[in-house]
Protein backbone atom coordinates (compact mmCIF):
# COMPACT_ATOMS: atom_id res chain seq x y z
CA UNK A 1 0.00 0.00 0.00
CA UNK A 2 2.75 2.46 1.01
CA UNK A 3 4.67 1.33 -2.03
CA UNK A 4 1.63 1.94 -4.21
CA UNK A 5 1.26 5.49 -2.93
CA UNK A 6 4.96 6.15 -3.45
CA UNK A 7 4.82 4.92 -7.03
CA UNK A 8 1.70 6.98 -7.73
CA UNK A 9 3.28 10.05 -6.19
CA UNK A 10 6.41 9.58 -8.29
CA UNK A 11 4.19 9.33 -11.35
CA UNK A 12 2.16 12.52 -11.72
CA UNK A 13 0.44 11.26 -14.89
CA UNK A 14 -1.26 8.44 -13.01
CA UNK A 15 -2.41 10.95 -10.44
CA UNK A 16 -3.95 13.01 -13.24
CA UNK A 17 -5.71 9.84 -14.37
CA UNK A 18 -7.13 9.17 -10.92
CA UNK A 19 -8.36 12.77 -10.70
CA UNK A 20 -9.98 12.66 -14.17
CA UNK A 21 -11.74 9.38 -13.39
CA UNK A 22 -12.90 10.73 -10.04
CA UNK A 23 -14.31 13.83 -11.75
CA UNK A 24 -16.14 11.80 -14.39
CA UNK A 25 -17.61 9.42 -11.82
CA UNK A 26 -18.60 12.34 -9.61
CA UNK A 27 -20.22 14.14 -12.55
CA UNK A 28 -22.18 11.04 -13.51
CA UNK A 29 -23.45 10.27 -10.01
CA UNK A 30 -24.39 13.84 -9.14
CA UNK A 31 -25.56 14.88 -12.61
CA UNK A 32 -29.07 15.78 -11.42
CA UNK A 33 -27.63 18.23 -8.90
CA UNK A 34 -24.71 19.60 -10.92
CA UNK A 35 -26.44 20.01 -14.27
CA UNK A 36 -27.64 23.60 -14.80
CA UNK A 37 -30.65 22.25 -16.74
CA UNK A 38 -31.44 18.85 -15.26
CA UNK A 39 -34.60 18.46 -17.34
CA UNK A 40 -32.61 18.65 -20.60
CA UNK A 41 -31.88 15.00 -20.04
CA UNK A 42 -35.03 14.13 -22.01
CA UNK A 43 -37.21 15.26 -24.88
CA UNK A 44 -37.33 18.95 -24.04
CA UNK A 45 -37.35 21.76 -26.58
CA UNK A 46 -36.50 25.42 -26.06
CA UNK A 47 -36.29 26.93 -29.54
CA UNK A 48 -35.53 30.38 -28.16
CA UNK A 49 -32.08 29.09 -27.30
CA UNK A 50 -31.63 26.61 -30.17
CA UNK A 51 -28.14 26.04 -31.61
CA UNK A 52 -26.37 28.73 -29.55
CA UNK A 53 -22.56 28.84 -29.17
CA UNK A 54 -21.02 28.59 -25.68
CA UNK A 55 -22.05 31.42 -23.38
CA UNK A 56 -22.31 32.20 -19.69
CA UNK A 57 -25.76 30.59 -19.66
CA UNK A 58 -24.77 27.50 -21.63
CA UNK A 59 -21.06 26.78 -21.07
CA UNK A 60 -20.89 24.38 -23.97
CA UNK A 61 -23.63 25.88 -26.08
CA UNK A 62 -27.01 24.39 -26.89
CA UNK A 63 -28.15 21.75 -29.35
CA UNK A 64 -30.53 22.10 -32.28
CA UNK A 65 -33.62 22.11 -30.08
CA UNK A 66 -32.12 24.37 -27.45
CA UNK A 67 -31.04 21.86 -24.81
CA UNK A 68 -27.96 22.65 -22.68
CA UNK A 69 -25.05 20.60 -24.02
CA UNK A 70 -23.16 20.58 -20.72
CA UNK A 71 -26.16 19.11 -18.87
CA UNK A 72 -26.62 16.46 -21.52
CA UNK A 73 -22.95 15.47 -21.41
CA UNK A 74 -23.18 14.92 -17.64
CA UNK A 75 -26.15 12.61 -18.15
CA UNK A 76 -24.42 10.86 -21.03
CA UNK A 77 -21.58 10.00 -18.63
CA UNK A 78 -24.13 8.12 -16.51
CA UNK A 79 -25.08 5.91 -19.45
CA UNK A 80 -21.45 5.33 -20.46
CA UNK A 81 -20.30 4.34 -16.98
CA UNK A 82 -23.25 2.03 -16.31
CA UNK A 83 -22.67 0.36 -19.66
CA UNK A 84 -18.97 -0.07 -18.97
CA UNK A 85 -19.49 -1.52 -15.51
CA UNK A 86 -22.18 -3.97 -16.62
CA UNK A 87 -20.24 -5.16 -19.66
CA UNK A 88 -17.04 -5.73 -17.70
CA UNK A 89 -18.84 -7.31 -14.74
CA UNK A 90 -20.03 -10.03 -17.12
CA UNK A 91 -17.27 -10.23 -19.73
CA UNK A 92 -14.32 -10.35 -17.30
CA UNK A 93 -15.49 -13.32 -15.17
CA UNK A 94 -16.72 -15.31 -18.17
CA UNK A 95 -13.50 -14.76 -20.10
CA UNK A 96 -11.41 -15.46 -17.01
CA UNK A 97 -13.03 -18.85 -16.42
CA UNK A 98 -12.61 -19.81 -20.09
CA UNK A 99 -8.99 -18.71 -20.12
CA UNK A 100 -8.12 -20.36 -16.81
CA UNK A 101 -9.52 -23.72 -17.82
CA UNK A 102 -7.94 -23.64 -21.28
CA UNK A 103 -4.60 -22.49 -19.90
CA UNK A 104 -4.35 -24.88 -16.99
CA UNK A 105 -6.00 -28.01 -18.38
CA UNK A 106 -4.31 -27.89 -21.79
CA UNK A 107 -4.99 -30.71 -24.23
CA UNK A 108 -8.49 -30.97 -25.67
CA UNK A 109 -10.02 -28.34 -23.39
CA UNK A 110 -7.38 -25.90 -24.58
CA UNK A 111 -7.87 -26.75 -28.26
CA UNK A 112 -11.65 -26.40 -28.20
CA UNK A 113 -11.96 -23.40 -25.89
CA UNK A 114 -9.28 -21.43 -27.65
CA UNK A 115 -10.68 -22.16 -31.13
CA UNK A 116 -13.99 -20.74 -29.93
CA UNK A 117 -12.14 -17.67 -28.71
CA UNK A 118 -10.31 -17.46 -32.06
CA UNK A 119 -13.63 -17.37 -33.88
CA UNK A 120 -14.73 -14.35 -31.89
CA UNK A 121 -11.36 -12.64 -32.23
CA UNK A 122 -11.29 -13.07 -35.99
CA UNK A 123 -14.15 -10.68 -36.48
CA UNK A 124 -12.96 -7.14 -35.83
CA UNK A 125 -14.48 -6.15 -32.46
CA UNK A 126 -16.59 -3.28 -33.71
CA UNK A 127 -17.87 -5.27 -36.71
CA UNK A 128 -19.19 -8.05 -34.47
CA UNK A 129 -21.01 -5.54 -32.29
CA UNK A 130 -22.36 -3.74 -35.36
CA UNK A 131 -23.61 -7.02 -36.84
CA UNK A 132 -25.36 -7.93 -33.60
CA UNK A 133 -26.95 -4.52 -33.29
CA UNK A 134 -28.02 -4.96 -36.89
CA UNK A 135 -30.36 -7.77 -35.93
CA UNK A 136 -31.30 -6.54 -32.45
CA UNK A 137 -33.40 -3.55 -31.50
CA UNK A 138 -31.22 -0.55 -30.64
CA UNK A 139 -31.69 -0.31 -26.88
CA UNK A 140 -29.27 0.16 -24.01
CA UNK A 141 -29.68 -3.46 -22.87
CA UNK A 142 -28.99 -4.82 -26.34
CA UNK A 143 -25.98 -2.56 -26.72
CA UNK A 144 -24.62 -3.99 -23.47
CA UNK A 145 -25.31 -7.49 -24.74
CA UNK A 146 -23.56 -6.88 -28.06
CA UNK A 147 -20.50 -5.30 -26.45
CA UNK A 148 -20.30 -8.07 -23.83
CA UNK A 149 -20.40 -10.78 -26.49
CA UNK A 150 -17.50 -9.20 -28.35
CA UNK A 151 -15.57 -8.44 -25.17
CA UNK A 152 -15.23 -11.64 -23.15
CA UNK A 153 -12.84 -13.39 -25.57
CA UNK A 154 -10.20 -10.75 -24.87
CA UNK A 155 -10.21 -11.74 -21.20
CA UNK A 156 -10.08 -15.39 -22.17
CA UNK A 157 -7.02 -14.69 -24.29
CA UNK A 158 -5.28 -12.66 -21.58
CA UNK A 159 -5.94 -15.12 -18.76
CA UNK A 160 -5.13 -18.07 -21.01
CA UNK A 161 -1.69 -16.66 -21.79
CA UNK A 162 -0.92 -16.02 -18.11
CA UNK A 163 -2.31 -19.36 -16.94
CA UNK A 164 -0.29 -21.21 -19.52
CA UNK A 165 2.93 -19.69 -18.31
CA UNK A 166 1.99 -20.03 -14.64
CA UNK A 167 1.28 -23.71 -15.28
CA UNK A 168 5.03 -24.19 -15.66
CA UNK A 169 5.81 -22.56 -12.31
CA UNK A 170 7.08 -24.66 -9.46
CA UNK A 171 4.20 -23.85 -7.14
CA UNK A 172 1.73 -25.51 -9.53
CA UNK A 173 3.93 -28.60 -9.67
CA UNK A 174 4.06 -28.55 -5.87
CA UNK A 175 0.27 -28.46 -5.61
CA UNK A 176 -0.02 -31.29 -8.14
CA UNK A 177 2.46 -33.45 -6.27
CA UNK A 178 0.54 -32.86 -3.05
CA UNK A 179 -2.56 -33.96 -4.95
CA UNK A 180 -4.66 -30.80 -4.80
CA UNK A 181 -7.70 -30.80 -7.09
CA UNK A 182 -8.00 -29.06 -10.43
CA UNK A 183 -10.40 -26.47 -9.05
CA UNK A 184 -8.05 -25.64 -6.20
CA UNK A 185 -5.07 -25.24 -8.51
CA UNK A 186 -6.94 -23.21 -11.13
CA UNK A 187 -8.84 -20.88 -8.80
CA UNK A 188 -6.80 -20.73 -5.60
CA UNK A 189 -3.25 -21.05 -6.92
CA UNK A 190 -3.23 -19.70 -10.49
CA UNK A 191 -6.09 -17.19 -10.45
CA UNK A 192 -4.56 -14.92 -7.76
CA UNK A 193 -1.52 -14.59 -10.01
CA UNK A 194 -3.75 -13.48 -12.92
CA UNK A 195 -5.67 -10.89 -10.90
CA UNK A 196 -3.26 -7.96 -11.21
CA UNK A 197 -3.38 -8.25 -15.01
CA UNK A 198 -7.17 -8.65 -15.00
CA UNK A 199 -7.71 -5.63 -12.77
CA UNK A 200 -5.37 -3.52 -14.89
CA UNK A 201 -7.14 -4.60 -18.05
CA UNK A 202 -10.55 -3.85 -16.55
CA UNK A 203 -9.48 -0.31 -15.73
CA UNK A 204 -8.14 0.26 -19.23
CA UNK A 205 -11.21 -1.42 -20.72
CA UNK A 206 -13.63 0.95 -18.98
CA UNK A 207 -12.28 3.50 -21.43
CA UNK A 208 -12.44 1.18 -24.42
CA UNK A 209 -15.99 0.06 -23.68
CA UNK A 210 -16.98 3.74 -23.65
CA UNK A 211 -15.30 4.08 -27.06
CA UNK A 212 -17.05 1.07 -28.57
CA UNK A 213 -20.45 1.97 -27.12
CA UNK A 214 -20.17 5.52 -28.41
CA UNK A 215 -19.09 4.15 -31.79
CA UNK A 216 -22.26 2.08 -31.96
CA UNK A 217 -24.48 5.02 -31.15
CA UNK A 218 -22.48 7.19 -33.55
CA UNK A 219 -23.64 4.81 -36.30
CA UNK A 220 -27.20 5.02 -34.96
CA UNK A 221 -27.05 1.48 -33.61
CA UNK A 222 -26.91 2.17 -29.90
CA UNK A 223 -28.88 4.10 -27.34
CA UNK A 224 -31.63 6.03 -29.07
CA UNK A 225 -32.63 9.70 -28.68
CA UNK A 226 -33.79 11.50 -26.67
CA UNK A 227 -31.54 9.68 -24.17
CA UNK A 228 -28.29 11.63 -24.20
CA UNK A 229 -25.34 9.67 -25.58
CA UNK A 230 -21.90 11.02 -26.48
CA UNK A 231 -21.64 9.06 -29.73
CA UNK A 232 -25.00 10.08 -31.14
CA UNK A 233 -24.36 13.69 -30.08
CA UNK A 234 -21.19 13.73 -32.20
CA UNK A 235 -23.01 12.10 -35.11
CA UNK A 236 -25.82 14.65 -34.95
CA UNK A 237 -23.45 17.59 -34.73
CA UNK A 238 -21.15 16.39 -37.52
CA UNK A 239 -23.80 17.42 -40.04
CA UNK A 240 -23.50 21.04 -38.91
CA UNK A 241 -19.75 21.42 -39.20
CA UNK A 242 -17.97 23.73 -39.21
CA UNK A 243 -20.50 26.39 -38.14
CA UNK A 244 -21.97 24.70 -35.05
CA UNK A 245 -18.61 23.24 -34.02
CA UNK A 246 -19.58 22.98 -30.34
CA UNK A 247 -22.13 20.28 -31.13
CA UNK A 248 -19.34 17.83 -31.99
CA UNK A 249 -16.27 19.18 -30.25
CA UNK A 250 -17.61 19.11 -26.67
CA UNK A 251 -19.09 15.59 -26.74
CA UNK A 252 -15.91 14.43 -28.52
CA UNK A 253 -13.75 15.99 -25.82
CA UNK A 254 -15.98 14.48 -23.17
CA UNK A 255 -15.20 11.01 -24.52
CA UNK A 256 -11.51 11.86 -24.75
CA UNK A 257 -11.34 13.09 -21.15
CA UNK A 258 -13.11 10.09 -19.65
CA UNK A 259 -11.17 7.52 -21.66
CA UNK A 260 -7.86 9.32 -21.16
CA UNK A 261 -8.51 9.26 -17.41
CA UNK A 262 -9.11 5.52 -17.36
CA UNK A 263 -6.06 4.95 -19.55
CA UNK A 264 -3.74 6.99 -17.34
CA UNK A 265 -5.12 5.29 -14.25
CA UNK A 266 -4.76 1.82 -15.78
CA UNK A 267 -1.25 2.62 -16.87
CA UNK A 268 -0.34 3.67 -13.34
CA UNK A 269 -2.04 0.59 -11.91
CA UNK A 270 0.02 -1.56 -14.25
CA UNK A 271 3.17 -0.22 -12.64
CA UNK A 272 1.86 -0.49 -9.09
CA UNK A 273 0.76 -4.09 -9.62
CA UNK A 274 3.80 -5.00 -11.67
CA UNK A 275 1.92 -6.19 -14.75
CA UNK A 276 3.67 -6.70 -18.09
CA UNK A 277 2.20 -5.07 -21.14
Amino acid at each position, binding site marked *: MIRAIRILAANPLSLVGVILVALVVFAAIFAPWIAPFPTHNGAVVDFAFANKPPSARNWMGTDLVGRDLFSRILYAYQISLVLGVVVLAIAAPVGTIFGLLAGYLGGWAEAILMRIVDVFLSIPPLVLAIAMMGVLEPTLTNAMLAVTVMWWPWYARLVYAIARSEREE*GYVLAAE*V*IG*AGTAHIAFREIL*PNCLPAIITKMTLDMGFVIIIASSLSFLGLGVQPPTPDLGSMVAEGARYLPDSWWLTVFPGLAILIAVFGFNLMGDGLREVLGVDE
Partner: protein
Amino acid sequence: MSLLSLENLIKTFDSPAGKIHAVRDVSLEVTQGECLAIVGESGSGKTTLANMILGILAQTSGNVLFNDTVLSPKRTPDQRRHIQLVQQNPLSSLNPKRSVGASVRLGLDTYGIGARADRWQIVEQALEAVGLPANMRKRAPAALSGGQRQRVGIARALACEPELLVLDEPTSALDVLVQARVLRLLNELRASRGLTYVFITHDLAVVRNIADRVAVFQSGRLVESGTTEQIFTQPQAEYTRKLIGAVPVVDPDEMALRDKLAESS
Protein backbone atom coordinates in the same frame (compact mmCIF):
# COMPACT_ATOMS: atom_id res chain seq x y z
CA MET B 1 13.46 -54.08 2.29
CA SER B 2 12.97 -51.95 -0.78
CA LEU B 3 10.52 -49.11 -0.42
CA LEU B 4 10.56 -48.03 -4.03
CA SER B 5 11.44 -50.10 -7.06
CA LEU B 6 11.58 -49.07 -10.66
CA GLU B 7 11.24 -51.89 -13.17
CA ASN B 8 12.35 -51.38 -16.75
CA LEU B 9 11.11 -47.79 -16.88
CA ILE B 10 11.05 -46.25 -20.32
CA LYS B 11 9.94 -42.76 -21.29
CA THR B 12 9.86 -41.56 -24.86
CA PHE B 13 8.69 -38.14 -26.03
CA ASP B 14 7.51 -37.28 -29.51
CA SER B 15 8.95 -34.17 -31.10
CA PRO B 16 8.85 -32.75 -34.62
CA ALA B 17 12.41 -33.99 -35.09
CA GLY B 18 11.53 -37.55 -34.08
CA LYS B 19 11.37 -39.56 -30.87
CA ILE B 20 13.35 -38.45 -27.84
CA HIS B 21 14.42 -41.24 -25.53
CA ALA B 22 14.45 -39.49 -22.18
CA VAL B 23 14.69 -42.59 -19.99
CA ARG B 24 15.82 -45.90 -21.50
CA ASP B 25 15.01 -49.04 -19.59
CA VAL B 26 15.95 -48.12 -16.03
CA SER B 27 15.61 -50.49 -13.07
CA LEU B 28 16.46 -49.33 -9.56
CA GLU B 29 15.72 -50.21 -5.94
CA VAL B 30 15.51 -47.73 -3.08
CA THR B 31 15.71 -49.26 0.41
CA GLN B 32 13.68 -47.95 3.32
CA GLY B 33 15.66 -45.25 5.17
CA GLU B 34 18.46 -44.78 2.67
CA CYS B 35 19.48 -41.81 0.55
CA LEU B 36 19.94 -42.69 -3.09
CA ALA B 37 21.60 -40.03 -5.23
CA ILE B 38 20.69 -39.82 -8.88
CA VAL B 39 23.52 -38.06 -10.65
CA GLY B 40 23.67 -36.76 -14.17
CA GLU B 41 24.19 -33.74 -16.37
CA SER B 42 21.51 -31.95 -18.38
CA GLY B 43 19.71 -34.32 -20.70
CA SER B 44 20.55 -37.33 -18.54
CA GLY B 45 16.85 -37.97 -17.87
CA LYS B 46 17.10 -37.53 -14.12
CA THR B 47 14.22 -35.04 -13.87
CA THR B 48 12.02 -37.18 -16.14
CA LEU B 49 12.74 -40.11 -13.85
CA ALA B 50 11.77 -38.04 -10.81
CA ASN B 51 8.51 -37.00 -12.45
CA MET B 52 7.63 -40.63 -13.11
CA ILE B 53 8.36 -41.55 -9.50
CA LEU B 54 6.09 -38.69 -8.41
CA GLY B 55 3.32 -39.68 -10.81
CA ILE B 56 3.45 -36.33 -12.61
CA LEU B 57 4.44 -38.01 -15.85
CA ALA B 58 3.18 -41.33 -17.19
CA GLN B 59 5.88 -43.78 -18.21
CA THR B 60 5.87 -45.18 -21.74
CA SER B 61 6.40 -48.64 -20.27
CA GLY B 62 7.68 -50.30 -17.10
CA ASN B 63 6.52 -50.21 -13.51
CA VAL B 64 6.88 -48.04 -10.45
CA LEU B 65 6.41 -50.10 -7.25
CA PHE B 66 5.99 -48.51 -3.83
CA ASN B 67 5.83 -50.82 -0.81
CA ASP B 68 5.48 -53.71 -3.31
CA THR B 69 2.35 -52.18 -4.85
CA VAL B 70 2.35 -51.21 -8.51
CA LEU B 71 1.51 -47.51 -8.84
CA SER B 72 -0.44 -46.49 -11.89
CA PRO B 73 0.26 -43.00 -13.19
CA LYS B 74 -3.27 -42.09 -12.04
CA ARG B 75 -2.51 -42.23 -8.35
CA THR B 76 -4.87 -42.41 -5.44
CA PRO B 77 -4.55 -39.55 -2.95
CA ASP B 78 -2.98 -41.91 -0.43
CA GLN B 79 -0.32 -43.02 -2.91
CA ARG B 80 0.50 -39.41 -3.71
CA ARG B 81 0.75 -38.44 -0.10
CA HIS B 82 3.61 -40.81 0.68
CA ILE B 83 5.93 -39.57 -2.06
CA GLN B 84 6.63 -35.86 -1.84
CA LEU B 85 8.90 -33.42 -3.64
CA VAL B 86 11.34 -30.64 -2.78
CA GLN B 87 12.14 -28.54 -5.83
CA GLN B 88 15.25 -26.83 -7.06
CA ASN B 89 14.13 -23.26 -7.45
CA PRO B 90 12.92 -21.76 -4.17
CA LEU B 91 11.78 -18.65 -6.08
CA SER B 92 9.14 -20.35 -8.19
CA SER B 93 8.18 -23.25 -5.92
CA LEU B 94 6.14 -21.05 -3.58
CA ASN B 95 3.06 -19.22 -4.82
CA PRO B 96 3.94 -15.50 -4.59
CA LYS B 97 0.28 -14.64 -3.90
CA ARG B 98 -0.20 -17.00 -0.96
CA SER B 99 1.25 -16.86 2.52
CA VAL B 100 3.95 -19.28 3.55
CA GLY B 101 1.50 -20.89 5.97
CA ALA B 102 -1.14 -21.42 3.28
CA SER B 103 1.40 -23.25 1.13
CA VAL B 104 2.43 -25.52 3.98
CA ARG B 105 -1.18 -26.13 4.96
CA LEU B 106 -2.22 -27.36 1.50
CA GLY B 107 -1.19 -30.95 2.21
CA LEU B 108 -3.03 -30.94 5.57
CA ASP B 109 -6.26 -29.81 3.91
CA THR B 110 -5.87 -32.19 1.00
CA TYR B 111 -5.39 -35.28 3.15
CA GLY B 112 -7.40 -34.19 6.16
CA ILE B 113 -4.39 -34.39 8.47
CA GLY B 114 -5.24 -33.16 11.97
CA ALA B 115 -8.46 -31.53 13.10
CA ARG B 116 -9.37 -28.43 11.11
CA ALA B 117 -8.94 -26.21 14.16
CA ASP B 118 -5.47 -27.55 14.89
CA ARG B 119 -4.03 -27.18 11.42
CA TRP B 120 -2.44 -23.76 11.83
CA GLN B 121 -0.72 -25.13 14.88
CA ILE B 122 0.55 -28.11 12.88
CA VAL B 123 1.80 -25.68 10.22
CA GLU B 124 3.72 -23.76 12.86
CA GLN B 125 5.24 -26.96 14.20
CA ALA B 126 6.26 -27.94 10.68
CA LEU B 127 7.97 -24.57 10.21
CA GLU B 128 9.79 -24.91 13.52
CA ALA B 129 10.91 -28.41 12.59
CA VAL B 130 12.85 -26.98 9.65
CA GLY B 131 14.38 -24.21 11.75
CA LEU B 132 12.00 -21.37 10.92
CA PRO B 133 10.13 -19.21 13.44
CA ALA B 134 6.43 -20.12 13.81
CA ASN B 135 5.31 -16.58 13.06
CA MET B 136 6.73 -16.87 9.56
CA ARG B 137 3.52 -18.54 8.43
CA LYS B 138 1.85 -15.18 7.86
CA ARG B 139 4.65 -13.84 5.68
CA ALA B 140 4.68 -13.67 1.88
CA PRO B 141 7.37 -15.72 0.09
CA ALA B 142 8.84 -12.52 -1.36
CA ALA B 143 9.91 -11.46 2.14
CA LEU B 144 12.02 -14.61 2.63
CA SER B 145 15.62 -15.37 1.68
CA GLY B 146 16.43 -18.23 -0.68
CA GLY B 147 17.44 -20.50 2.17
CA GLN B 148 14.27 -19.74 4.12
CA ARG B 149 12.11 -20.46 1.08
CA GLN B 150 13.84 -23.77 0.59
CA ARG B 151 13.13 -24.64 4.22
CA VAL B 152 9.47 -23.77 3.65
CA GLY B 153 9.51 -26.13 0.65
CA ILE B 154 10.82 -28.89 2.90
CA ALA B 155 8.22 -28.12 5.58
CA ARG B 156 5.46 -28.23 2.96
CA ALA B 157 6.57 -31.66 1.76
CA LEU B 158 6.95 -33.00 5.31
CA ALA B 159 3.54 -31.73 6.37
CA CYS B 160 2.05 -34.51 4.23
CA GLU B 161 3.92 -37.02 6.42
CA PRO B 162 5.54 -38.80 3.46
CA GLU B 163 7.77 -41.87 3.56
CA LEU B 164 9.81 -40.91 0.52
CA LEU B 165 11.14 -37.48 -0.41
CA VAL B 166 12.26 -36.75 -3.95
CA LEU B 167 14.77 -33.90 -3.68
CA ASP B 168 15.32 -32.32 -7.10
CA GLU B 169 18.57 -30.29 -6.90
CA PRO B 170 17.37 -28.88 -3.55
CA THR B 171 20.48 -26.82 -2.85
CA SER B 172 21.91 -25.95 -6.24
CA ALA B 173 20.28 -22.50 -6.29
CA LEU B 174 21.64 -21.66 -2.83
CA ASP B 175 24.84 -20.00 -1.65
CA VAL B 176 27.49 -22.30 -0.16
CA LEU B 177 26.93 -21.29 3.47
CA VAL B 178 23.19 -21.73 3.13
CA GLN B 179 23.63 -25.00 1.24
CA ALA B 180 25.72 -26.44 4.05
CA ARG B 181 23.01 -25.68 6.59
CA VAL B 182 20.15 -27.01 4.45
CA LEU B 183 22.08 -30.23 3.77
CA ARG B 184 22.65 -30.69 7.51
CA LEU B 185 18.95 -30.14 8.12
CA LEU B 186 18.07 -32.78 5.51
CA ASN B 187 20.42 -35.26 7.17
CA GLU B 188 18.91 -34.61 10.60
CA LEU B 189 15.36 -34.95 9.32
CA ARG B 190 16.13 -38.22 7.61
CA ALA B 191 17.60 -39.64 10.79
CA SER B 192 14.91 -38.37 13.14
CA ARG B 193 11.94 -39.29 10.96
CA GLY B 194 13.18 -42.42 9.27
CA LEU B 195 12.71 -40.83 5.84
CA THR B 196 13.93 -42.21 2.54
CA TYR B 197 15.50 -39.82 0.02
CA VAL B 198 15.89 -39.86 -3.73
CA PHE B 199 18.38 -37.02 -4.14
CA ILE B 200 18.69 -35.72 -7.68
CA THR B 201 21.73 -33.60 -8.40
CA HIS B 202 24.59 -32.80 -10.73
CA ASP B 203 26.91 -31.92 -7.83
CA LEU B 204 29.12 -34.87 -6.94
CA ALA B 205 30.68 -33.19 -3.93
CA VAL B 206 27.23 -32.86 -2.37
CA VAL B 207 26.47 -36.49 -3.24
CA ARG B 208 29.59 -37.69 -1.48
CA ASN B 209 28.45 -36.09 1.76
CA ILE B 210 24.78 -36.99 1.81
CA ALA B 211 24.10 -40.19 -0.15
CA ASP B 212 24.35 -43.84 0.85
CA ARG B 213 24.20 -45.06 -2.69
CA VAL B 214 24.68 -43.41 -6.08
CA ALA B 215 23.17 -44.04 -9.51
CA VAL B 216 24.92 -42.31 -12.41
CA PHE B 217 22.84 -41.42 -15.48
CA GLN B 218 23.87 -40.41 -18.97
CA SER B 219 21.47 -39.74 -21.87
CA GLY B 220 18.63 -41.59 -20.15
CA ARG B 221 20.71 -44.66 -19.30
CA LEU B 222 21.80 -45.91 -15.91
CA VAL B 223 25.57 -45.99 -16.40
CA GLU B 224 26.64 -47.23 -13.01
CA SER B 225 25.31 -47.67 -9.51
CA GLY B 226 26.84 -48.64 -6.19
CA THR B 227 27.55 -47.44 -2.70
CA THR B 228 28.89 -43.92 -2.41
CA GLU B 229 32.24 -45.26 -1.23
CA GLN B 230 32.52 -47.57 -4.27
CA ILE B 231 31.57 -44.89 -6.77
CA PHE B 232 34.09 -42.40 -5.45
CA THR B 233 37.02 -44.73 -4.85
CA GLN B 234 36.58 -47.38 -7.56
CA PRO B 235 34.34 -45.98 -10.28
CA GLN B 236 33.87 -48.54 -13.01
CA ALA B 237 32.43 -46.46 -15.83
CA GLU B 238 34.59 -44.06 -17.82
CA TYR B 239 31.79 -41.48 -17.62
CA THR B 240 31.72 -41.59 -13.82
CA ARG B 241 35.47 -40.99 -13.72
CA LYS B 242 35.08 -38.07 -16.09
CA LEU B 243 32.36 -36.52 -13.91
CA ILE B 244 34.40 -36.83 -10.73
CA GLY B 245 37.44 -35.48 -12.55
CA ALA B 246 35.54 -32.35 -13.57
CA VAL B 247 34.55 -31.34 -10.03
CA PRO B 248 36.31 -28.12 -9.02
CA VAL B 249 38.00 -28.86 -5.69
CA VAL B 250 39.66 -26.87 -2.93
CA ASP B 251 41.74 -29.33 -0.84
CA PRO B 252 45.04 -31.06 -1.63
CA ASP B 253 43.64 -34.46 -0.67
CA GLU B 254 40.71 -33.92 -3.02
CA MET B 255 43.21 -33.25 -5.78
CA ALA B 256 45.03 -36.42 -4.85
CA LEU B 257 41.80 -38.39 -5.19
CA ARG B 258 41.10 -36.86 -8.57
CA ASP B 259 44.62 -37.54 -9.80
CA LYS B 260 44.39 -41.12 -8.62
CA LEU B 261 41.17 -41.64 -10.57
CA ALA B 262 42.69 -40.01 -13.63
CA GLU B 263 45.65 -42.42 -13.49
CA SER B 264 43.50 -45.51 -13.15
CA SER B 265 41.52 -44.67 -16.29
